[in-house]
């Protein structure tokens, strides 16, 4: 019977581009490794309690921010803190400009525009580049990789003045499109590195088989590369979105009243006095929500992305 099994793969089973076996072996092996590590004989209660206490300690500022945002201003500013005070949406109404008339919506829309469009641009530029660095690599592709990385190591402050002067000269100050280009260049090196690492996970045999079958490039991209690399590409997009959404220095220097982003709007709360703590917390919650969603959505690939693919 055993002599029969080697013949079975001749049905081009593992060579088929969409074969589930080829896709799953990696994760299955990882799961097996994970199982071996879960040593049931060891008593981890102490470690668990310590981890939970520390986790709660780290989460307290976030939880406190959320709780305070649902308190009234008078309950928010007490010493000792009024943990069990009545909950209200007043702070959110205030943040959205109920009495002041200053709406955060333009800045939120600017942030969304800048983050989403720059992420789309980054993906459009980085995907072909990552392809030329992994699947059909150019000569000296490692040198190119390190050039990309080295641009990320140059601090923004070292280039911001010429960019500011350029924008002022051509009238691009306070223009969201200029900011979009800046964010694209800011995230492009990271995206190229992340995507390369995700594309490199596409099994060689699958690509070769597809080429022997005479599949064209578009078909290969759609049927082989996309299914394997899609979670990675999505994670790359989410991480680029987060970095753009968070950015303050470029936005503060290059934008003003018209194109100001959400972090720039938040700087209005830096020196605020009086009873506005609940409003600050509401603002912080609203503006952090997209990042929290994006981050938790990318959680599985977050490490690989943030370490530029160096850590799996």
């Amino acid at each position, binding site marked *: 019977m055993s002599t029969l099994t080697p013949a079975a793969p001749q049905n081009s089973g593992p060579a088929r581009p969409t074969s589930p076996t080829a896709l799953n072996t990696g994760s299955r092996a990882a799961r097996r490794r994970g199982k071996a590590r879960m040593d049931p004989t060891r008593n*981890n209660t102490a470690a668990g309690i310590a981890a939970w206490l520390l986790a709660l300690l780290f989460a307290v500022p976030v939880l406190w921010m959320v709780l305070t945002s649902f308190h009234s201003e008078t309950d928010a*500013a007490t010493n*000792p803190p009024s943990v069990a005070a009545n909950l209200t949406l007043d702070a959110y109404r205030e943040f959205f400009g109920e009495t002041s008339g200053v709406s955060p919506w333009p800045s939120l829309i600017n942030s969304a525009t800048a983050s989403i469009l720059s992420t789309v641009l980054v993906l459009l530029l*980085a995907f072909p580049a990552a392809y030329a660095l992994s699947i059909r690599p150019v000569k000296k592709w490692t040198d190119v990789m390190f050039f990309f990385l080295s*641009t990320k190591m140059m601090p923004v*402050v070292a280039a911001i003045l010429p960019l500011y002067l350029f924008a002022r000269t051509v009238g691009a100050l306070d223009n969201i499109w200029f900011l979009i280009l800046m964010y694209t260049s800011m995230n492009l090196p990271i995206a190229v590195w992340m995507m390369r690492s995700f594309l490199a996970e596409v099994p060689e045999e699958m690509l070769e088989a597809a080429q022997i079958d005479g599949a064209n490039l578009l078909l290969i991209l759609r049927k082989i590369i996309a299914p394997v690399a899609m979670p990675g590409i999505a994670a790359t997009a989410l991480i680029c979105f987060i970095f753009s959404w968070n950015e303050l220095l470029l936005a503060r220097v290059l934008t003003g009243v018209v194109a100001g982003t959400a972090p720039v709007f938040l700087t209005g709360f830096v020196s605020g006095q009086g009873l506005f703590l609940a409003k600050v917390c509401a603002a912080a919650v609203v503006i952090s929500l997209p990042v929290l969603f994006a981050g938790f959505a990318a959680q599985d690939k977050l490490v690989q992305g943030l370490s530029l693919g160096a850590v799996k």
Partner: protein
Amino acid sequence: MTTATARISRPGHNAANPAREAKSRERALAWARRAPLLPALVFLILVTQLPFVATLVISFMNWNSLSPDKTAFAGLENYATVLTDPDLRQAIFTTILLTVSVVLISLLIGLGLALLLDKKFLGRGLARTLLIAPFLVVPVAAALIWKHALLNPTFGLINGVLTWVWSLFGSAEAPQLDLLSQAPMMAVILSLVWQWTPFMMLILLAGLQSRPMDTVEAAQMDGATPWGIFRHLTLPHLRQYLELGGLLGAIYIVQNFDAVFTLTAGGLGTANLPYAIYQTFYFANEYGLASAAGVVVVIGTIIVATFALRTVFSLFKKEAAR
């Protein structure tokens, strides 16, 4: 005759052609391979390298936009000012102190958390998620929360909790902290450590989970103590991950602007170089000086980056060899 010569010359012609054809085909192929790379490469050179060249040029100029008629070549004067001006020297020192302390402290705490999370316990996934949360708060928002909701001397949570704990013991004289004005640097470091520890923890946890367990099990069988295993097996394996986390963290924290801007507005000796440069060009309009300071940051970053690149490269080669 003509047909004959044509026929004779053909084989020779044919022999030369394939070689040339092959060469041009090879070149076309090489360009076809390069083509997908070019848009990204050209874009990046235009947007990052060109401005830096401009910064270099401006750094050698005496240029204050408030007195444009005095614009002139200044030689190394701006660099001399960067290294001698007490404020800018303080900014260099602050940048180093901030980067080193935040990286080291968050690496240490991150290591402890990663070691705990490497064990299996009830609700591990949820604990991990809670621990990532600080990293997923917009940095300006996080700095605002620290400034107003946690560190505020009259109604911040930290002093509030002190009051509450002391009142449990019947005392109305709880100690009250005012980090923002008494130890502003500590306030900045505290908020940044809070944000960056999750990053370090994630990288170190991934490192721990890639540890070959068979050697650990063999060591356990041989009667090695947990400390011995940590010291001689886990730590050497984690070295690369510690370096990677530290250096990636350093690259981001050297450039930090948000926390300094929000928490202290650069006051009381907390202005790091990015903040000082921002002030020098945005408010003081000293373009030449700001550019020279920018070049100094780049030089410092290059020194750190050479180490960073080496570490990333060794991990990268390992992965490529797999």
